[in-house]
């Protein structure tokens, strides 16, 4: 398996505060990897650093490197990360464009795609097939969708950017159990058809059940890593992150 | 005792300035700049309540100042001056000491009421839409005064200097300066007391999260009413003092340009910082005078300076901090409770 993403000794600052103190991890092609940890441990920061989001939201990388397929991302503007590489991020809180319709949201995601009408059309089909609810609500302002539908849209949007590597930031937040399980099943399906996934999740139990491998982040440092089974069995991890 | 150091220092400062003016240690020009500085401090700190603490974008402060200026001018002229329309003075000059502050109060009260024009729509209308309402209010006030022949319309209104003469006929000291300084201290004192109370903290609560404020028991409508009326009332006080300093008012002095100036002072000082607003008002007035020699270029240089300042300190001079936050030692010397 090829290494897709490699984060090397990444140090990141927000203003005067160092948020990550040199973390290293990697994601291999076809894997599902999860980062778990307490709030403020630096999980979202890691994702934002990888996506090179512009100021003021973005953290500043002071040391280390992020490699994607062997290519460093540090000097890439954020939109290039998405348009030139096949990465996508489903941000925390979904961040869909509420003033656009469902269809427009999806269309917007194809902004930078150059691989032809045909391929784009196929992806539309795929999204609507994965989420029939979105097809029903094509013309609706996406603001009026329920939380679950919005999450579907956010995921659909990521698919529309033509991604092979998907990062998800707390996808289960605020979702009813039924929808949450549905979504994870869909993600699993996508993974089986070749999508690599990096998942951040508060619900560590769930995340480890879903992922192949996991890293545990604590106040900006990786304190444990291993396969999901290993982590689930680790008494320390169990105590600190999985609850009694 | 230590707690009162600041208070004593302030009043000592006032007395010192008055003495300087009295014995011509500072010439008229500096005194005049000082008085406009005071007026600007009142304006900036009162607008800061709405634009800074409440986070609304009121750009019609000049209108409220105008109402205060006219109403208090009319009162003083009625009382102490001979005017071809309003007739002979109603009161003998001895009453000027009481009459003048009362006229200022009347002006403030009137502009407070004018503040309702903005305060009531603010219950429903917010943000940039409210900004337009304030702007419209400013235009309406000026247009109304332009149409009021009895107070001079666009010609302006004068005769206020009689009040000063009346006061000086009793005791020859720079009365207007004293009133301006007292007015400035009063404004800062009043606002300071308001924003440091739990009641007053409802205002920034509305700014930071109106829905949370509403649901967590803050009567938002009442707070908006208080904030707008207090702010416009103090603007009226500034207007009354301004009219007295100048001895002449003209509706064009209170147009959008004036409102813009006050806004610049507020944002220059930092939103939600009382000391920031005061410092910015002082700095701005000084800049205005100090750069006079640039003639036409002055108005290119000043905005450029401000743009540059914004680039380096995008939150204004003080951000939302007070002087006492930056120099905690100061806290020893005064108390708010």
């Amino acid at each position, binding site marked *: 398996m090829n290494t897709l993403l490699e984060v090397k000794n990444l140090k990141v600052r927000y203003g005067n505060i160092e948020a990550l103190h040199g973390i290293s991890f990697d994601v291999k092609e076809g894997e599902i990897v999860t980062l778990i940890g307490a709030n403020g441990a630096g999980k979202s920061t890691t994702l934002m650093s990888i996506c090179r989001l512009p100021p003021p939201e973005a953290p500043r990388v002071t040391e280390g490197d992020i490699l994607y397929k062997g290519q460093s991302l540090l000097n890439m503007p954020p939109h290039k990360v998405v348009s030139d590489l096949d990465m996508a991020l489903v941000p925390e809180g979904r961040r869909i464009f509420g003033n656009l319709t469902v269809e427009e949201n999806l269309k917007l995601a194809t902004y930078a795609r150059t691989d032809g009408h045909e391929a784009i059309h196929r992806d539309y089909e795929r999204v609507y097939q994965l989420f029939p609810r979105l097809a029903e609500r094509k013309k609706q302002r996406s603001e009026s969708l329920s939380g679950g539908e919005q999450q579907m849209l956010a995921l659909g949007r990521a698919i529309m950017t033509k991604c092979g590597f998907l990062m998800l930031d707390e996808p289960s937040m605020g979702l009813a159990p039924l929808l949450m399980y549905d979504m994870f099943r869909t993600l699993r399906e996508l993974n089986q058809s070749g999508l690599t996934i990096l998942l951040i999740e508060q619900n560590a139990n769930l995340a480890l059940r879903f992922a192949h491998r996991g890293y545990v982040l604590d106040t900006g440092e990786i304190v444990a890593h291993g396969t999901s089974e290993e982590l689930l069995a680790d008494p320390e991890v169990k105590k600190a992150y999985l609850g009694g | 005792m230590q707690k009162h150091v600041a208070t004593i220092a302030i009043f000592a400062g006032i007395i010192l300035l008055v003495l300087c003016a009295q014995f011509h240690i500072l010439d008229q020009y500096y005194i005049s700049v000082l008085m406009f500085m005071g007026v600007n401090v009142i304006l900036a700190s009162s607008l800061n309540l709405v634009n800074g603490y409440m986070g609304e974008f009121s750009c019609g402060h000049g209108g409220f100042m105008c109402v205060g200026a006219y109403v208090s001018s009319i009162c003083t002229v009625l009382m102490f001056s001979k005017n071809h329309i309003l007739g002979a003075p109603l009161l003998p000059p001895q009453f000027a000491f009481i009459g003048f502050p009362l006229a200022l109060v009347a002006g403030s009260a009137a502009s407070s009421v004018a503040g309702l024009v903005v305060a009531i729509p603010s219950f429903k209308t917010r943000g940039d839409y409210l900004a337009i309402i304030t702007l419209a209010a400013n235009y309406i006030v000026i247009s109304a005064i332009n149409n009021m022949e009895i107070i001079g319309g666009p010609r302006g209104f004068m005769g206020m200097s009689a009040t000063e003469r009346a006061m000086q006929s009793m005791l020859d000291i720079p009365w207007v300066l004293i009133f301006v300084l007292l007015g400035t201290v009063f404004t800062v004192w009043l606002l300071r007391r*308001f924003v440091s109370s739990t009641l007053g903290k409802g205002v920034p609560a509305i700014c930071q999260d109106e829905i949370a404020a509403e649901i967590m028991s803050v009567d938002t409508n009442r707070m908006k009413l208080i904030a707008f009326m207090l702010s416009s009332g103090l603007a009226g006080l500034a207007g009354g003092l301004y009219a007295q300093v100048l001895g002449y008012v003209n509706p064009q002095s209170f147009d959008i340009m004036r409102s813009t100036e006050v806004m610049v002072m507020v944002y220059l000082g930092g939103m939600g910082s009382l000391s920031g607003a005061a410092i910015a008002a002082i700095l701005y007035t000084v800049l205005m005078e100090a750069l006079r020699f640039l003639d036409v270029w002055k108005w290119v240089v000043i905005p450029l300076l401000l743009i540059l300042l914004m680039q380096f300190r995008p939150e204004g001079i003080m951000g939302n901090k007070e002087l006492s936050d930056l120099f905690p030692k100061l806290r020893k010397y005064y108390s708010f409770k």
Partner: protein
Amino acid sequence: MSLLEIKGLTRRFGGLIAVNDFNIELGERELVALIGPNGAGKTTVFNLISGFYQPSEGSIRLKGKDTKGLRPHQVTGLGVARTFQGIRLWSEMHVLDNIRIAQHYRLGYSLVDCFLRTKNYMLREKAIDDIAWELLEAMGLKDCAYELPRNLPYGVQRRVEIARAMSVKPSLLLLDEPAAGLNSADVEGLIKLVRWIHDTFPVTIWMIEHQMKVVMSLCSRIKVVDFGTTIADGNPEEIQKNHAVIKAYLGDDTI
């Protein structure tokens, strides 16, 4: 007399029916959960109770008093406090101020008192302060009294929000997804906190929550809604077995 009595509550937004004929009766010191799929109208019910929306039909009675037409701060005055789905603290003011401001409805002094710092003002402010400190102490937040909420960890922010709601001294506390965004360890703490509140204060707690662990371990009664209407109402065991609930809400947990 029951604490809260909702009858035939309906709320429409344009053509959309968000809440349809919702009924519930809550007694003193109950601990109830409201669950249901996303978009089922749960938060809307809370918004209707707290006076943020006015009902299209039906009535809400608090301690026998109809809340129709009351503005949110007046409803709070009747003893209803709540938290929000996303944390809505006043982020630029420190924790202590956050808790002080929530006591606005019982300030008991006027603007003039405030300017003149009268005796009344001093007494009232002191009372507000005392309550705030008491709560902070009791909820273990004393050390962060002068911190800005945004500098606090998420879990602590939740606590502060609950503390703020408790400073209202409510008889009905509405918690809107209190466990959302908390990690497993924080969730444990939350469960303990809610239980402590319920044991210590004479308050009825009503929560919306998706994490079954929280709901099942805390609540004695669970009401399930979908598309604005109630599909089940009962104790945790009953709900977990209810087919309609499984079908519409709980789902199949294989992933």
